[in-house]
């Protein structure tokens, strides 16, 4: 039963999840949603790490994932703060209106 699930299955899921995240980042206009899509990218990476760790029987990957989760949490705190600050200033969190950083 377990032999049916190979490393490739995990990696394909991870890749799809990552593509979904990228598509979200590119397509969506709402900064919060873009943020959530970014988290999806991180978790796709986590999934791949754990899969490798399990199939290669090396624990390092799983340790790294804990770090990534911790850092992602810290990042969310900063990122959400930025989005709140943006909203206070512009009354909007649509990235289409945040195009002042150009020539």
């Amino acid at each position, binding site marked *: 039963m377990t032999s049916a699930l190979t490393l490739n299955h995990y990696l394909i899921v991870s890749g799809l999840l990552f593509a979904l995240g*990228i598509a979200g980042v590119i397509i*969506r206009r709402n900064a919060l949603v873009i943020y959530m899509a970014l988290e999806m990218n991180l978790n796709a990476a986590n999934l791949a790490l754990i899969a490798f760790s399990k199939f290669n029987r090396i624990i390092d990957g799983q340790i790294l994932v804990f770090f990534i989760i911790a850092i992602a949490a810290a990042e969310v705190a900063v990122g959400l703060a930025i989005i709140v600050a943006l909203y206070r200033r512009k009354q909007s969190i649509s*990235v289409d209106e945040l*195009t002042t*950083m150009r*020539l």
Partner: protein
Amino acid sequence: MNHWLLNYSVDWGMRNGHTPICSVWIILFAPLVAAALIALVTPKWKGVSAALSIGAIALSFALSMGLFLVFAVKHIAHQPHTIQWLVVGDAVRIEFGMITDPLAMLMLLVVTGVGLAIHVYSLGYMKGDPGFSRFFACLSLFTFSMLGIVLSNNFIQIFIFWELVGASSYLLIGFWFEKPSAAEAGKKAFLTTRIGDVGMMLGILLLWSRAGTFNFAELQAKLPSLGLSPGILALIGVLIFTGAVGKSAQVPLHVWLPDAMEGPTPVSALIHAATMVAAGVYMLCRVSWLILPSATALHLIAWIGGITAIMAATIAIAQNDIKRILAYSTLSQLGYMVMTVGLGGPTQAMFHLTTHAFFKALLFLGAGSVIVALHHEQDIWKMGGLWKKMPITFWTFLIGTLALAGVPPLSGFYSKDEILLLAFEKSTPLFIMAITTAFLTAYYMGREVFVVFFGQPRDRHSYDHAHESPLVMTLPLIFLALLSIVAGWHGRVPDFLGALPETGHHSVLLTGGLIAVPLFGFLVAATIYWKPEPSDAPVKAALGQLWTWVENKYYFDELYAWIVKYVQGTIATICDLFDRWILQRLGIGGLSVGTGLLGRTVRLLQTGSISGYAFLVGLGVTVIIYCVVVR
């Protein structure tokens, strides 16, 4: 004669090793020290400046005399003294050395002796000039450079000093630089001689590429074993001769010397008559071992010298400026010397160089004395009858004239005699040119003397104010007049230089003819110009169209102006267009416009949209991964 000096020099020299070599360094560097001190410390104190300059050259003269006496009496062999100066790898070895053979010693005496007289004379001539100190600094700098040429023992060193005399000559011709004509003349002299110097440099490098050394003695020893083809040998000889063409003002680079008369008269005497212009001849004599093996080079040298001699002499008969007549005469005599080198007689050339240095310096200083007396009037047609007013100037000028014309028993006779005899033996056409030149020399000098010193004064006002020059000016005149008389006696000078080839016995007719020619020249000049109111009219009528040609110096200046205007001007225009359109517009301008356009294009990517950026990042990463994995 001067026993204490002789003993002193000998003892001093002996104590210091084989030769009094230290004194050679002092001879060379004393004027440089004087020049530096004047320029840096004493420009405000005119008396001190003059004393420094004159003291330096007097010291050089005394030491040269000592060196000469040591050699003449004790016959001490002179060791060449060199220091390694620049060594680049094994190939390039440049020395700074001194050569003190008889040739160099003779030239040392001429340069320092005539130089001393002219330095003293300048005290009177330059009195009250605002640039008094500057003048003496330049004069000392020139003396240093000239002595450097004389003492050099290798080509690089001689070339450096060669350029240094060019620079000091430029400074002194343009001494009164506020006069546009003087500034122009300085530029002309500098640029014209530069053309010759480029040729000389090429010759030096070509010789070095074959022989691998610059040292004269080594080259002389090596040359026969190098097996150079006649073509290369002739090319080297001619290229090195090009330097002498520029410096000694031979055709076709002679145009700068007459204009150089814009400088103060002592400068004309020292630099543009006695020493610097003779440097070309000296250099040819110094490297005669290089030129003598090549018949082609010798032919060219002889003919250029001969043409210069007769052409300058014909121009001199139609000049109206007291100094320009002498300038063309200098050209003519330099032509003689160069021709003599070309005929294979460097000893005779040096002999004439020596006597010429004395009497031509004397003539220039005499002319300067007249110019000062008439408050800077140089037109001979505004002079006249001056012999009563200025007896010393007149008599010394007369001695110089007779010596220049070659009247026995003055020095010019002996040296010119040797040259004419050599020409008689070697080449008939050149002999005819030379003897015609001798006639013309006597004629134009007679014209100058009769017009300036005899006849009625034509400018009564300046005649009344004219007076004999002060002692500082007349003493050098007397000194040089004595030298002009005795310098040729008994062939002492050529004996000193080494064996003068025995010219054999010539018929009395030839010798008599050589004496008669200058006298005939004077006679012709006297019949035309020895009148109360002399004028050029009879000659002008006799010569017709030819007079216009000589009066305009055969249109050399006009020809060169035309060449510069059309040939050089066209090249300059093409270069200008290339620079303006190809380099500036296409090269520099193209680059800047291209960069601007590229920037504008790339800026379009900078949208400020986060999703755009994310897309590009994603795309980029994908491409990288694709390249890494799939490839």
